[in-house]
């Protein structure tokens, strides 16, 4: 295991990694920008080092600043968290070149899985069904029109790089396609520096189900079950749960086993998440892999009792998994609510400001992963995630009941949060019946969704 690691991230995930370090007996150095000087991870760290100004390009996205910080503080590994440089093979390579360990897949593995389109083909060849899509990247408009005709409308335009819904558009007609491609190209170019796009067939009423896997350096892999992330707003997940209500126990196990077999055969290493779209008939199509710890990993931790960050660090340190598939058991039901500083009444406009009062809920099966404290000023420069409320119950009904109670108890004053949308979800019939699809919120619009919940 490592002696001392640099946490190259901020907010709740920096705190989460710090907690894993404490339980493993690893010293943690937190790298922070000037805007995060007063943040909780900085205060709790064994050591904290300022790496640059608020602008992420010169701090959390600056490989030289992060690596220099790791070197001068005597670290032997770097944890990238999620977002920022977490899946950047160039960063992973430079970390390695400075005799530090990148806590995640090696640069070679990241490189192999960097292109979404290439990964679909690779894992398709190892037994995963993929959504019908374009043959490679779209060369120009006429190529796009031909491919869309061949696949059949509606189609989803997707960027090869990045994530988070940027550069993505669903189109139903050839007329819409050309202008949507222009918009997606410019969005993808500015967000990821790469405007390569491809097409996928759009499945109406689909569900988003993902499988958590872990593969050690010796090619031994296990899965840790699936998570249902169907509740989204414009391709951004806002609530995740496990097990998925979309599939029965046998289908869930079969999907997870197929996923882990495919990634082991394709040479994946470390923890990762395979995302699938599940259609109305329960067919699961592989869409992409995330080569990092995910925001929603606590859902899996609640069901399995496994510390995912500690597992990730052990694998990166070259230790064998020490677990076989039969050691992994799944108990009960867990739901995660992403608590964001955004205003659901005003098109989810992100906010910033000082947290004047804060109280995290408690009780059986309730967990709050958050970096908030009273008096903390949420800086305006980064994403709007304030924390994650995770509830567990022996069954879905109990988890939902605990979720309601915990959301009511959660107190965050000084900022507008999206708690109302979660409360509305827990009163929504489709959600309560477990029938939610990825268009649950976008179909009616979040405003109408909230209004309907208020009337009910």
């Amino acid at each position, binding site marked *: 295991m490592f002696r001392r690691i640099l946490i190259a991230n901020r907010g709740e995930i920096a705190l989460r990694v710090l907690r894993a370090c404490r339980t493993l007996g690893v010293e943690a150095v937190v790298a922070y920008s000037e805007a995060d000087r*007063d943040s909780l991870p*900085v205060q709790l760290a064994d*050591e904290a080092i*300022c790496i640059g100004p608020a602008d992420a390009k010169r701090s959390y996205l600056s*490989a030289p600043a992060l690596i*220099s*910080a790791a070197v001068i503080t005597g670290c032997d590994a770097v944890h990238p968290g999620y977002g920022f440089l977490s899946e950047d093979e160039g960063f992973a*390579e430079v970390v390695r070149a400075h005799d530090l360990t990148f806590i995640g897949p090696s640069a070679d593995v990241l490189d192999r899985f960097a292109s979404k389109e290439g990964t679909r083909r690779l894992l398709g060849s190892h037994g995963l069904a993929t959504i019908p899509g374009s043959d490679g990247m779209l060369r120009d408009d006429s190529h796009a029109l031909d491919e869309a005709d061949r696949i059949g409308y509606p189609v989803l335009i997707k960027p090869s790089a990045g994530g988070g819904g940027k550069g993505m558009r669903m189109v139903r007609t050839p007329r819409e396609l050309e202008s949507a491609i222009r918009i997606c190209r410019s969005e993808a170019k500015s967000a990821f520096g790469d405007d390569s796009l491809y097409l996928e067939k759009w499945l109406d009423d689909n569900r988003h189900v993902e499988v958590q896997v872990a593969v050690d350096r010796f090619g031994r892999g296990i899965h840790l079950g699936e998570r249902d992330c169907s509740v989204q707003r414009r391709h951004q997940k806002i609530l995740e749960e496990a097990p998925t209500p979309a599939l029965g126990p046998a289908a869930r196990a079969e999907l997870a086993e197929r996923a882990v077999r495919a990634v082991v055969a394709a040479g994946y290493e470390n923890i990762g998440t395979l995302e699938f779209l599940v259609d109305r008939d329960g067919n699961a199509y592989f869409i992409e892999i995330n080569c990092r710890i995910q925001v929603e990993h606590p859902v899996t931790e609640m069901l399995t009792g496994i510390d995912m960050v500690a597992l990730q660090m052990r694998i990166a340190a070259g230790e064998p998994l020490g677990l076989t598939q039969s050691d992994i058991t799944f108990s009960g039901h867990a739901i995660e609510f992403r608590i964001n500083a955004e205003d659901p009444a005003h098109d989810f406009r992100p906010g910033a400001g000082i947290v004047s009062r804060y109280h995290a809920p408690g009780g059986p099966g309730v967990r709050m992963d958050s970096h908030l404290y009273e*008096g903390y*000023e949420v800086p305006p420069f980064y994403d709007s995630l304030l924390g994650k409320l995770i509830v567990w119950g022996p069954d879905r009904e109990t988890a939902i009941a605990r979720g309601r109670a915990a959301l009511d108890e959660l107190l965050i004053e000084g900022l507008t949060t999206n708690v109302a949308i979660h409360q509305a979800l827990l009163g929504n019939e489709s959600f309560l019946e477990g029938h939610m699809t990825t268009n649950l919120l976008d179909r009616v619009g979040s405003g109408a969704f909230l209004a309907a919940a208020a009337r009910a």
Partner: protein
Amino acid sequence: MPQGSPEPRESKVRQPRDTDRDANRDAARGAAREADLTAIDSLIDRLVPALTAKLGSTHLGELEVREGDWRIRLRRPATAGNWNGELRRSSDRAGRSGASHDAHGGTRSGGAASTSADAHRVPTPGGSNGSSPHPGGSQPPRPAHEDETRRVATSPAVGVFHTGARSTVGTRVRQGDTLGHVDVLGVREDVLSPADGLVGELLTQAGTAVEYGQELVVIALPTSAEAVR
């Protein structure tokens, strides 16, 4: 794709095998030279624009690509604006693994010893800072050593501080003069004087690991009498 592994890839520009070496030596030399020139042209045409774009988009300090017997390395200078490309044979191992890695080794050992005093924030489990964090303040605080008679030059980066010719106490400096530099993995980031004045005390010793924004050198502002003179 960027390649930084210490083992060069197998050469695509094949040299003749040992068995027919004698007969083909001269012809091979000519051919190899031709191939080298072609390789250089091709690398420059194809790779430099792509690498420049990649370097720009990743914000890495340095990128290296190998192909055949050749490798090309781009390094972002400390002060952005101009680019240096280096082209050299793989057999010339001095470049990357020599200079820059030695510098890192030095940084590491030098830093480890001195970090605790300067870049270190004291952990505060149960301490007053830890239990009652003070609110607000995303703005960097004004350097503690500044007042109306003096300004402080701060670190432009995280790395190891080195003094320069103009950092001797008593030296007269102008705003923007280089007082020293911070070594960031072998790349210099200049420490600039924030004002006209006289170099006062060094708040951080040369050779010390420093964080971004750390106070380094006091600049005593000229008194009104001096300013007139």
